[in-house]
């Protein structure tokens, strides 16, 4: 089986936001609204006093193995593929927002009819969205099906984002996760995320 996951190395993320731009163009997200990114890079100051560091923190849907967004979805629009990718069927979604309330990672954004009107103007005739719905990262499953990597991974200048198959023991991503160097966010909530973070400078030498 295939079980997709992403590892993000916080030590090499330079905060260039190329991943945000690549994702937006690949997935035709509502770039006119600054709150509607599928992936977002937070710019943080970490630490106290003289020990303050600047850190960039990219986030996106974690494609949880136990996704609360899916269990609360009344229409069945949020589903999970056998390869671990959690997706939203935009035709089924009624946009109640329950999934956004359930997601502990702030990974979902609403795409409204107004966004669709803007989208047709901005992206032109090949705009693909057909109905309003909640929206989130899909690990670019349309690219993954073609054997490619998600747009954010392909574009990442610091090689900070890595994408791979947890079920393949030879995959570097699987090895990083198995080694314990890459860790998931907020494991206590029980969502079992598939996006992992490396925040230890020494790990990659």
């Amino acid at each position: 089986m295939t079980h997709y996951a992403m590892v993000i190395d916080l030590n090499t993320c330079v905060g260039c936001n190329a991943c945000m731009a690549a994702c937006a163009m690949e997935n035709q997200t509502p770039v006119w609204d600054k709150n509607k990114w599928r992936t977002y890079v937070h710019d943080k100051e970490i630490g106290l006093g003289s020990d303050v560091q600047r850190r960039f923190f990219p986030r996106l849907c974690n494609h949880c193995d136990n996704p609360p967004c899916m269990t609360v979805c009344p229409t069945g629009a949020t589903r999970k593929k056998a390869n671990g990718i959690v997706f939203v069927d935009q035709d089924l979604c009624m946009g109640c927002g329950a999934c956004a309330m359930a997601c502990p990672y702030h990974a979902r954004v609403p795409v409204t009819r107004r966004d669709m009107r803007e989208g047709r103007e901005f992206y032109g005739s090949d705009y693909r969205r057909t109905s309003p719905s909640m929206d989130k990262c899909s690990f670019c499953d349309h690219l993954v099906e073609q054997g490619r990597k998600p747009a954010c991974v392909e574009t990442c200048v610091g090689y900070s984002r890595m994408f791979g198959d947890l079920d393949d023991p030879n995959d570097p991503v699987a090895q990083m996760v198995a080694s314990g160097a890459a860790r998931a966010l907020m494991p206590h909530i029980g969502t079992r995320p598939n996006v992992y973070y490396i925040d230890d400078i020494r790990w990659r030498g």
Partner: protein
Amino acid sequence: MDVNMTYATQEMWTWWLAIYLYFGGLGAATLAVTFLTDMYLKPNRALVIWGAGAGVVLLALGSLMLFGHLLDKTAVLTVLNPMAMLNQSSAWIAWGTQFIIWMMVWGVLYALPYVRETEFPHRVPGIRDLIDKPFVIGTSKLVQRFHRSVGWLAVINGVGVAVYTGLLLQSFPAVALWHNPAVPLLFTVSAFSTAMAFLLVLMYTLLHDQADEHVRVLYERIDLVLIAAELVILFSLYQYLKNGSESAVRSLELLWNDYGWLIGFIGFGLILPFLLELKGVMRGWGSRVPILTAAVLVLAGGYLLRHYFMYAGVYAYPW
């Protein structure tokens, strides 16, 4: 992980969802209490017509609040299908939608024989034509035969709606304020307390039947117990939040530093009506004004509870 946490309150479900939860619980509990009163305390045509009418309207208005905010209104058809409960059995909105729809059906059916017996609807042109249709007459006779069964279906369904409003909030794991068993309990008790208050308002204003005195007294007593139960649940919730995760502590700070919650809801929405009703139950009041005041305060408090609960839900994000 070596990052700072940030704390954020959601902006997705705000006052309009508070109204949905409020009207849903209040409407369903009003129907359930009305029918129980009619079945076991005193058959009461006027109370059923007003209680059922108001209950159905409250449920419809509450549902409209949710419907109005859907991104894609046509996709709502999925949850109008009863199979949604089985297909999406873990999703409380799927259950809640069905509960609310069926609650309105039982409400209308239970009241139908009473409506047909009443003179006024026969004088209103549109309604007269409707209730005199052979199909409606047949349905009314059938309901009369199985009045208790319909009543109990409504009562069970009503409890379902009231519990659902809290279960829905409980299903969001990242917010400690909502994700705990006190919430369905609190919302259910509050729904029935506000229903008592609503029916007391009806009985003290529109339905002045002296013979209903014992029903009113019973409602006051039950409401007193429910308010006391609400205070106990709130106290245990306070203890849970006080010693809980950061998200819980932040919610607690938001709630207990807000006069709307502290003075508005707990002071005027619970403690003051409790004292007014306690005096009424122990020694009685010379006029209906104090109990009417208590009932109106309980009703306002019921909304404030849901309003502040929605706004004080704090998420903790590791970035």
